[in-house]
């Protein structure tokens, strides 16, 4: 399947380049704008700094097999009492192969009662998604999930 994805991406890129007129801005093929696992790691470091990230407390729900990458439901829930003394301050979600590593950052507080955030995201390829929760005490907890995408977002022609 990887092979087929590469071919599609290549075709999309070629079409983009061919369409650009001479002297206009150079249009890069879609593939070259992808984030990488390294870019994701860098983006995560930017958020957490040198604090160690621990596995657990966070659960990341999204379908393991996605037919259409344009809308993928995602729910992040974090175990927390959500009291004034101990609550989840922020939830960050990252991906490794979309054009940019960041997906969203949600800021919460004790007034939320439950540290649960749901949304729908786009996935440009089969990849790993990482959710990181920041507690009021400055700790970081994480969860990761692998998703297989059959039809990627972004590749279809806009109309």
């Amino acid at each position, binding site marked *: 399947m990887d092979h087929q994805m590469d071919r599609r991406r290549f075709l999309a890129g070629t079409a983009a380049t061919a369409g650009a007129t001479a002297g206009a801005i150079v249009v890069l093929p879609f593939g070259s704008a992808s984030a990488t696992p390294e870019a994701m790691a860098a983006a995560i470091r930017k958020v957490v700094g040198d604090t160690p990230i621990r596995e657990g407390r966070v659960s990341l729900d999204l379908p393991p097999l996605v037919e259409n990458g344009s*809308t993928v439901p995602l729910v992040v829930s974090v175990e927390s009492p959500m009291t004034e003394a101990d609550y989840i301050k922020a939830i960050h979600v990252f991906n490794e192969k979309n054009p940019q590593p960041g997906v*969203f950052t949600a800021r919460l507080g004790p007034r939320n009662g439950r540290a649960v955030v749901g*949304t729908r995201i786009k996935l440009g390829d089969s990849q790993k998604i990482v959710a990181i929760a920041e507690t009021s005490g400055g700790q970081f907890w994480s969860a990761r999930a692998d998703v297989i995408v059959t039809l990627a977002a972004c590749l279809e022609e806009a109309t």
Partner: protein
Amino acid sequence: MANVLVNAPKTAKRGSVVEIKALILHPMETGFRPGPNGRIIPRNIIERFTATWNGTEIFDMEMSPAIAANPFVSFFAVASESGTVGLRWTGDEGFVVEERVAIAVE
């Protein structure tokens, strides 16, 4: 001219936790896709979604182009007192939409 769909309970018990779901019509154009003429379509996304309860901010979300078109967000809130939940979306090209829902707390 934006269409917004908000799902929140009309009434809630004091101190209970309620779920608020919000959906807004928006293309969330990533800025990475070529259009029919081969040129990249400029980015047009919602960058931020915030929620307030009687004016106090309770939830905030920074979005990226990786959020699906017609962004949907669900979150929870403690029903502390009767009042208005204010939702606000802001984004590229001066996009600002506000919506309010009333929740009665008993």
